[in-house]
C-alpha cells in the first residue's frame, strides 16, 4: 500500500527523510514527521489500491476505538512497517457529549455536576477549577477550612487517580495482577470519598463558595488509616514492578520525549516533568493553600515511560506527605462562605423560615448572578494543567465555558512518543500519557 501525504501538508515518507542538519532549529524536534496526516477518505481510497511498489510495505492499522489498551475510546491510525510504528494519528471524538456547550445552560451551582463528569478519574479537580473560576468572577473569599478541605480531597483524588494509572499501566504491560492491586487501593480511597460526599465518583462536592458539606465525624481516623495503609502497598508495587527487570526493560528508553518537544507540544503534568522540566502549578502559582504545605516537585531525566511511571508512583508518596500536613493543620470554622448571595440557607432554617425556603428555592432554580467578566484559572490535576476559562455576561449561567483539558493537549505528544517504536512500545506510550477520554472529548 502506498501512502501519499496530504496535499496541503507535505511530509516526506519517513524512509526518504534525511536527518536535519545539526544545529538547525528543526534538529531540536527530531521526530517532526511522526504525525500521520491523512484523512479517513484517503485511507479508504488507499485500501482499494493495488500494491505498487515492492519496497513500500507499510500498512495502516486502526488501533481503537474499541481496543483493550486505548483507555476508552481513543482511536489511533498507525502506519506500521511490520511491528514498527512509523507514523500515527490520534483520532478523538468518540466520547463527545458536548459538556462545554451544556455548561452554558447550567447555573453556576449546577455547573459542578457537569464538569465533574469530564475527567472521571479525578472529578474533584474539575469541580475545583470550575469553583475557583466562579469565585474569582464573584470576587468572594472562601473560608480557610473550605480551602483546606478542598486541598485534602484533591490530594486524595490525586492518589486515587495515580493508583488508577498504576493499575492500567501494569495491565497494559501485561502485569495483570497489578491492575487488581491498583483498583483495590483506589477503592479504599473512593470509600472515603463516599463517606464524605455520598458518591464514589462525580461528587459535586466542591462548589462555588466552598464545599457541599463538612467532613464527617471521624474523618481524621479514616484519612490516617489510608495514609498508613498506602506506603507499604507502594513498597509492594516497587517489588512487583519497579525492581522487576522485565518491567524496566519494557519502559526504560521507550516513548522518549525531549524537553523541547514537550514544551513545543505544550505537554503538562507528569509527562512534562518526566522530561526534566519542574513545572507544577501547585509550586509555581500556588492556589488554595499549597504555599503553606511542604512538598517536592518530582522531575525525571530521560522523558521516557519509565520516568512517567516513577514520577506518578512517587507523587503518590508526596501526596501522602501533603495529606498528613493537612490533617495536622486543618483549621476550624465554616466549610462554605457565609455570603447569602451564593450560599443557600442551612437545611434547619428552611423548616423555620418562609424567607429561607424562598431563598433556598431561588438559589437552586434560578441560581445566582455573576458579575460580567472573563477569567482563566488553572490547577495542577493528576494529568497536568487543568484550566477553566469562564466568560460571564452578568446572568446566572456562563456565557462561555472552556476547559483546558490536560489529556487532550498531552495526546498531541503521542505520535512523537510512539514513532519508530514497536506496537508494544506504542501501548506503553499511550499508557504513560494516561489520557482520560471523557476529558479529551468533553
Amino acid at each position, binding site marked *: 500500500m502506498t501512502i501519499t501525504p496530504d496535499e496541503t501538508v507535505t511530509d516526506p515518507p519517513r524512509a526518504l527523510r534525511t536527518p536535519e542538519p545539526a544545529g538547525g532549529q528543526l534538529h531540536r524536534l527530531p521526530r517532526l514527521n511522526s504525525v500521520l496526516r491523512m484523512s479517513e477518505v484517503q485511507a479508504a481510497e488507499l485500501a482499494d489500491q493495488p500494491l505498487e511498489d515492492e519496497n513500500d510495505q507499510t500498512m495502516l492499522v486502526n488501533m481503537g476505538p474499541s481496543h483493550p489498551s486505548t483507555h476508552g475510546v481513543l482511536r489511533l491510525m498507525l502506519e506500521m512497517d511490520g*511491528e514498527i510504528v512509523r507514523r500515527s494519528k490520534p483520532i478523538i471524538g468518540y466520547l463527545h457529549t458536548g459538556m462545554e456547550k451544556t455548561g452554558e445552560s447550567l447555573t453556576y451551582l449546577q455547573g459542578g455536576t457537569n464538569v465533574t463528569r469530564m475527567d472521571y478519574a479525578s472529578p474533584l479537580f474539575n469541580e475545583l477549577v470550575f469553583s475557583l473560576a466562579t469565585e474569582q468572577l464573584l470576587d468572594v473569599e472562601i473560608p480557610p477550612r473550605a480551602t483546606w478541605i478542598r486541598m485534602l480531597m484533591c490530594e486524595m483524588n490525586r492518589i486515587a487517580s495515580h493508583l488508577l494509572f498504576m493499575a492500567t499501566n501494569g495491565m497494559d504491560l501485561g502485569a495483570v495482577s497489578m491492575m*487488581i492491586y491498583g483498583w483495590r487501593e483506589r477503592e479504599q480511597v473512593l470509600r472515603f470519598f463516599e463517606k464524605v460526599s455520598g458518591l464514589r465518583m462525580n461528587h459535586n462536592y466542591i462548589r462555588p463558595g466552598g464545599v457541599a458539606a463538612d467532613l464527617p465525624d471521624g474523618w481524621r481516623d479514616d484519612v490516617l488509616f489510608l495514609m498508613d495503609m498506602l506506603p507499604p502497598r507502594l513498597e509492594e508495587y516497587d517489588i512487583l514492578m519497579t525492581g522487576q527487570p*522485565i518491567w524496566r*526493560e*519494557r519502559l526504560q528508553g521507550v516513548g522518549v520525549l525531549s524537553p523541547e518537544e514537550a514544551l513545543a507540544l505544550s505537554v503538562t503534568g507528569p509527562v512534562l516533568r518526566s522530561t526534566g522540566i519542574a513545572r507544577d502549578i501547585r509550586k509555581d502559582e500556588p492556589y488554595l493553600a499549597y504555599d503553606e504545605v511542604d512538598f517536592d516537585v518530582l522531575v525525571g531525566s530521560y522523558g521516557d515511560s519509565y520516568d512517567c511511571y516513577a514520577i506518578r508512583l512517587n507523587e503518590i508518596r508526596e501526596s501522602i506527605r501533603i495529606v498528613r500536613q493537612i490533617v495536622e493543620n486543618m483549621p476550624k470554622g465554616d466549610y462554605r462562605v457565609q455570603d447569602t448571595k451564593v450560599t443557600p440557607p442551612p437545611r434547619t432554617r428552611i423548616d423555620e423560615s418562609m424567607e429561607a425556603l424562598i431563598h433556598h428555592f431561588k438559589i437552586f432554580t434560578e441560581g445566582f448572578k455573576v458579575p460580567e467578566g472573563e477569567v482563566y484559572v488553572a490547577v495542577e490535576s493528576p494529568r497536568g494543567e487543568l484550566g477553566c476559562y469562564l466568560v460571564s455576561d452578568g446572568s446566572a449561567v456562563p456565557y462561555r465555558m472552556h476547559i483546558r483539558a490536560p489529556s487532550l493537549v498531552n495526546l498531541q505528544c503521542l505520535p512523537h512518543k510512539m514513532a519508530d517504536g514497536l506496537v*508494544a512500545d506504542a501501548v506503553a506510550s499511550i499508557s504513560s500519557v494516561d489520557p482520560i477520554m471523557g476529558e479529551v472529548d468533553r
Partner: protein
Amino acid sequence: MDPYLLDGVDFGDVVLSVAKAILAFVICLVATMFMVWFERKVVSRLQNRIGPNTSGPFGILQTLMDGIKLFFKEDNIPKEADPFVFRLAPYLSLIPAFLTFTLIPLGGDFNNGNDGAVTVFGRETFLQVADPPVGILFFLAMSSLGIYGIMLAGWASGSKYPLLGSVRASAQAISYEAALGLSLAAVVLVTGGLSMNSIVMQQAGEGFGGIIPNFNIIVTGFIPFAVFLIAGTAELNRPPFDLVEAEQELVGGFHTEYSGIRFALFFLAEFMNTVTMAAIIVTLFFGGPAGPAFLGSTLGWLTGMFWFLLKLLVFLFAFVWFRASLPRFRYDQLMSLGWKLLIPLSLGWLLVLAGIRVARNGDLGIADSAFGDTLIVIGVAFAILLIGMYVLRSAMTNARRDRLIAAGFNPREVN
C-alpha cells in the same frame, strides 16, 4: 517399546492399545479442565479475588459450563477469511496437543531396577499410551506442528491483528525451538536414549549418597533445565511470553476473529499444552513417576502416579505464578533473549557435558586417570565457555553500537 508389543501383536494387544488411548484421552481432557479451573482459582487468589465459585464445589465445573456456553455460541467466519484454513486451524492446534500427551509415562514402579511396567489382563505394559523409539523427538515434532495451527489461524483470519499475532508466533516458535532442542539434547546425552521410558528409568536409580535422587536436573547441571523451562514457557505462549495473543497489543492475537467452539478448541489446546509441557519437564528433569529411590515404593505402581502428580502440580502452579507476577516481554526482547542468551548457553553447556562424558569414559589419555581427564576437560570447557561468552557479548555490543550510529545517534553518547 512397550513389552506387550514385543512378541507379535494379537487381538488382545489391539484392544489394550485402544483402551489405553481412550483412557489417556479422558485423562487429558479432565486434566485440561482441571488446569483451567486451577489457573483461574490460583490466579484469583494471587490477585486478591475469589475466582470461580458458583458451578459445582469450589467452582470446579466452571470450565464445563464455559465449554457448553461456547459450544452454543454463534460460529462466525469473517468475510475476508479463507474458510477452509480458518476451519482447519483449530484442529491443527488441538491434535498435536493430544498426541504429545501420549508420550508421557503417567505412573508405574521404577524402583529397584523395575522398568515401570504393570500387568493388565495378563499383559505387561507401561502406563503410557505409546513409547516410540524416537520418543522425545516426537514431542519436538508435535510442538512444531502445533505452531502451524496458530500461524494459519492468524493468516486465514484475513485481519491485521491476527496476522501480526501469527507472524509473532512463527518467529517465536523458530527461535525457542532451537533452545528447547539443545537443552533437550543434554538430557538425551546423559540418558543415552530417546524413549521416554528409558529417560525415566535412567533417573530412577540411587543417586549420590542414596539420598539425592539421580534426577536429570542434577545430572545435567541445572542449566538445561532452566533453559528448557524458559523456552518451554515461550513455546506455550504463556505469560511472560504470551506475545502471540497479547491482549493489550493485538486485542486477541491469532484468535481475535475466532468465536464459539473454534475459539474453545484453541483455548483447550493451549491449556492441554500447558499440562503436557509441565509433564514433559517433570519427565525429563525430575524423574517423572520415579520418586526418590530411598523412599521405596510403598504404594506399588500407584507410587509412580503419586510422585508424578505431585511434581506436575508444582510446575502447573509455577506456570500460573509466572502469569500472576510477570509483565510481558516485548517482541525484540523475546528474540534477543532466545538467540543471544538461551541458544548460546544451552549449546555451550551441551559441549561441556559432552566433553565431560568423553573424559569419563577414559578414552582421552591426557592425564593418567579418567578422573584427571575429567578435571582437565572441565577446566578447558569452562575456559572455552567463558571466552565464548566474552566474544559473543563484545560482538553484540559492537553490533548494537554500529546500529545506533547508523541510526544517527552521536557516537560519543553511544556506549
